[in-house]
């Protein structure tokens, strides 16, 4: 690896200030970022180690919300009894990531801020993500690329927790050197047509400090369904984060967010509207599947994601309806 200094951050402000330096990068669990340093995708002179900041690794339930520190590991998140029972989609999403070794150190914030796994990007092609002005997947091997929201870059957002958090109407607390801001999860992620080089709105000197979930309504059921190209240790080909607030057999409120299909977590607001006020019958679930792929724009080699998405949405809703 190139040489760099590891700087242990004292607190969020200290970390954010250090991140102002031109070649300083924040690092949490490090599983992905160290690999990116080794592959010369990033060239830090300073790694600002966030793990030494106290207090960012707690899950705490308040009266109106649940706070999850950005440094909470995926393993902790997936096993936390309160998260499992009240925010199951998030526990399942965290549990689906990679392997035990990675979940033991991987953080929630790191998973949300993870860079894409597009093989052109990762093989150092001079693409948008690497500071260039082209997306090589368009005319190339795009089996795993976007069917929604793509252009000019067609990456898919690689995070599992991100669609779950959007489906849970989470809010993200972002800490900078002199101020903090809290924004809805959905506003954290940015389409390539806004900025093809990045996937989210974090400034260079900002850190995703914590995630805040509204109190789960009674009778809320949720799940995360991830389709992978081997039984484990793979990013989602397509995934569905679904949260349904039920009133008896009727769905009062729905949030359906897809992973693996777009450069950002892809919320299906039209499908949600279809479900709200209805009983989730197999027919409605099938209609929801159809609705989920309306307007899809597959590339030359990822057309299979359309029937796949349709099926995964239908199955997920059928499964949740029976809970």
């Amino acid at each position, binding site marked *: *690896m*190139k*040489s*760099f*200094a*590891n700087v242990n951050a004292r607190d969020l402000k200290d970390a954010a200030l250090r991140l102002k330096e*031109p*070649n300083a990068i924040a690092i949490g669990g*490090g*599983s*992905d970022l*160290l*690999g990116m340093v*080794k592959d*010369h995708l990033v*060239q830090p*002179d300073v*790694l600002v*180690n966030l*793990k030494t900041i106290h207090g960012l690794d707690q899950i705490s339930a308040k009266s109106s919300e649940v706070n999850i520190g950005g440094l909470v590991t995926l*393993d902790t998140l997936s096993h936390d009894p309160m998260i499992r029972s009240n925010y199951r989609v998030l526990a399942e999403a965290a549990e689906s990531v*990679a*392997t*035990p*070794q*990675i979940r*033991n*150190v991987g953080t929630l914030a790191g998973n949300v801020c993870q860079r894409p796994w597009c093989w052109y990007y990762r093989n*150092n*092609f*001079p693409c948008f993500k*690497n*500071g*260039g002005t082209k997306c090589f997947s368009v005319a190339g091997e795009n089996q795993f690329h976007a069917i929604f929201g793509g252009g000019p870059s067609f990456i898919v957002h690689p995070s599992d927790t991100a669609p779950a958090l959007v489906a849970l109407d989470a809010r993200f607390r972002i800490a900078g050197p002199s101020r903090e801001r809290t924004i809805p999860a959905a506003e954290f992620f940015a389409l390539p047509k806004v900025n093809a080089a990045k996937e989210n709105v974090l400034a260079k000197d900002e850190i995703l400090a914590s995630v805040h979930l509204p109190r789960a309504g009674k009778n809320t059921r949720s799940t995360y369904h991830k389709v992978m190209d081997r*039984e*484990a*240790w793979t990013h989602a080909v397509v995934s569905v984060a679904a949260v349904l607030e039920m009133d008896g057999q009727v769905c009062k409120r729905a949030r359906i967010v897809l992973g693996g299909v777009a450069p950002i977590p892809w919320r299906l607001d039209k499908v949600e509207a279809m479900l709200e006020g209805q009983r989730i019958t197999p027919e409605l679930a099938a209609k929801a599947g159809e609705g989920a792929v309306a307007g899809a724009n597959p590339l030359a080699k990822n057309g299979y994601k359309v029937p796949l998405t349709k099926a995964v949405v239908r199955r997920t809703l059928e499964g949740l309806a029976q809970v």
Partner: protein
Amino acid sequence: MSRISRRRFFEGTGAGIVATAVPVKGQQPARPAVPRTTIQITVNGARQKLEVEDRWTLVEALRDHLGLTGAKIGCDRGECGACTVLLDGKPVYSCSQLAVWADGRSVETVEGLARDGRLDPLQEAFIEHDGPQCGFCTSGQLMSAKALLNRNSHPTADEVRAAMTGNICRCSNYNRYVESVLAAAAAPATTASAAARRKA
């Protein structure tokens, strides 16, 4: 400050002169000193003090600077598990941890499994049930299995597979590893006689 210029790929057909260089802008022959840090880690129960380059991974520190070559580097990217060690009791990819982050923490490697000359039941079982073929993934498989049995002493086969998912075996001896771990979980507490029979 350094900036690496990108390689430019020639697009299209036909020949063309393409300059492909990776100069480091403003690079001088002699470089600034590589940042180093002194760390204290407990490895297999023994306190160690070590001066490391900040960029050294934990597996590099263990293998090249503490002489513990049991953990292997299979991919150096957290994609294979050959480097699995226990960090404060939890299995991690030591290739994806900086050595400096282990400061003040405790690391267990395969060399620490045997106690007082007696093999761990897992090691016994791996021998009896033919766990290792080429043996390169074996240290990592052992550490993941050890962490599993530490928290769940009677796992099912599915639980074993789930706990060891992060350890690739290209010889593909997966059936045998699962068999071995289940056997170790079922083994009696002491296996001194079996250990005594072993020869190097």
